């Protein structure tokens, strides 16, 4: 009787692991299945929108199908990779499902009005037809953004430290910061375009201004909030003023400074696009505006995809820098 029970329990266990395995495999093959149906849908259902298809979407789907099958086979061989892929697979499948639905409601059923809502084929085709221009615009935007961001962040660190450390600086600069700082940098566009010789310089100024405010505020707050005991320790160990500022105040305020840097990054994106839409004759913001002027909304969407990749990449980069510099916080604070 007892041994019988044990058997059934182990049977259940085996059944359970088998079940987990099969669900894993089903998850793993899901993207390929969805992509297959997306291809079938795209090729078999007749188009209702009166547009020429370019075949790019079809090619992308075909490539994705081959890739997803290849990845599936690899994940069957490599257990570790498989586990990671099976976890991600449902999401990947959902992305292709979204593409298929998008294709159906636009190209196939024409439920959404043109030219505002083109199908995936039209949008993907932009990367082929306009790829070079998009790349050039992206590089332009990155250059402008980084110049402005780095300039604004350095100035923000400088003024923030000054205000946080020196009472007289706080007296004179503090009010300026509190009153002028909250104005969105984009509101300065008309003045900046007149005050600077080129629109490029004007945009750098605007982006720098957008970054400067949050970085300054968070740096000075961070320094204000440093425990006094740290300064006392440093003083009794023989540290001078310079040491207290650079080796105690700034490192101690670093977590707060990074909040400012992240906030600044958000405002810098907004300012970049606004500046490019209004004054600068290059960059992704300009490209969006220009495409809209020609009612080429497929280009707008393509550009949005580029922006999404670019901005999320930059945020990831800043997170990387943060993790490097604030490694000591590991296990202390969760971000």
């Amino acid at each position, binding site marked *: 009787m007892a041994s019988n029970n044990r058997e059934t329990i182990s049977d259940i266990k085996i059944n359970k692991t088998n079940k987990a395995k099969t669900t894993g495999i089903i998850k793993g093959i899901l993207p390929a299945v969805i992509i297959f149906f997306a291809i079938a849908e795209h090729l078999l259902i007749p188009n209702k929108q009166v547009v020429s298809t370019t075949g790019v979407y079809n090619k992308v789907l075909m490539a994705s199908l081959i890739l997803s099958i290849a990845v599936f086979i690899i994940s069957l061989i490599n257990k570790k990779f498989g586990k990671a892929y099976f976890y991600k697979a449902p999401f990947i499948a959902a992305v292709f499902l979204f593409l298929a639905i998008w294709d159906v409601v636009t190209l196939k059923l024409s439920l959404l009005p043109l030219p505002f809502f083109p199908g995936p084929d039209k949008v993907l085709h932009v990367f082929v037809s306009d790829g070079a221009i998009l790349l050039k615009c992206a590089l332009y935007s990155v250059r402008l953004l980084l110049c402005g961001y780095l300039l604004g962040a350095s100035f923000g660190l400088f003024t923030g430290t000054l205000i946080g450390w020196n009472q007289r600086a706080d007296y004179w600069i503090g009010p300026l910061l509190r009153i002028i700082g909250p104005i969105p940098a984009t509101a300065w566009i008309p003045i900046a375009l007149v005050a600077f010789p080129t629109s490029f310089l004007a945009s750098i100024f605007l982006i720098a201004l957008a970054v400067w405010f949050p970085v300054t505020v968070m740096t000075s707050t961070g320094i204000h909030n440093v425990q006094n*005991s*740290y300064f006392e320790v440093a003083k*009794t160990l023989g540290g001078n003023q310079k040491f207290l500022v650079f080796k105690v105040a700034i490192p*101690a305020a670093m977590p707060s400074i990074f909040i400012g840097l992240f906030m600044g990054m958000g405002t810098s994106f907004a300012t970049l696009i606004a500046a490019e839409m209004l004054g600068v004759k290059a960059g992704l913001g300009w490209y969006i505006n220009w495409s809209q002027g020609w009612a080429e909304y497929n280009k707008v969407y393509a550009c949005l995809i580029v922006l999404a990749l670019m901005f999320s990449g930059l945020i990831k980069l800043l997170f990387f820098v943060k993790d490097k510099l604030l490694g000591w916080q590991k*296990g*202390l604070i969760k971000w």
Partner: protein
Amino acid sequence: MVDERKGALSFRNIHKEFIDNDGNKFVALDDFSMDIQPGSFVSLIGPSGCGKSTLLRMIAGLDTPTSGEILLDNDKIEGTNHERGLVFQQANLFPWLNVRENVATGLIARKVYKENKDEVDKYIKLVGLSGFEKSYPHQLSGGMAQRVSLVRVLVNKPKVLLLDEPLGALDAFTRMNMQEEILKIWKEQKVTVILVTHDVDEAVYMSDTIVILSSRPGRIQEVIKLRQDRTRSRNYPDFVDLRTRILEKLNFASTEDTTGYVI
């Protein structure tokens, strides 16, 4: 020449007043005068608010006396200096620096780190923290953190080592271990130690001079000199006698009062 430390302290009529938030003046320390020989181990003991910590902060240079002056080897104390190292009640390690960097802070601040690199490792070893050089403060136990904060001061080779209840927050075993370590360091380095403590046993066990302070305003109530050559033992008859005497001074021992508690 390099290691010729002195560390004679003299206090001349130290008076310290504070003004609280309501504008009331109160005297923390009054008429405090004494001389401390180089290389002695002095404990300051007394009830809360007797100005012990204030006195320590004034020696460190973090506070200044309202009147009177403190001399270190005949020079008036003004501001902070690495010659007067202070170990706080809380370890106060810099959380963004690892153990080694924390210990090296004083040397780096004084720009003498390069020539004293080996000292850092020597001191880390001295308090048994080898292998933890790369650990960050939040990964350390309370005792380990306090050890780091002790050697962070010692690596500066101070003439005067000021200890502001550094063992107060530690458990009994760690505390006794660290008492031994501090005594060992004191004997080796011939540094003048001033220890603020609430723990009468600690004061009796460790010091060769005990200064009992009265409360509000803090004044010297009694100075007890202990035999320098005595055996340091925690259950020596002298030890118990002395402890009773100090507790009486502090009004804690019940000699005549027999309304004992029934436990």
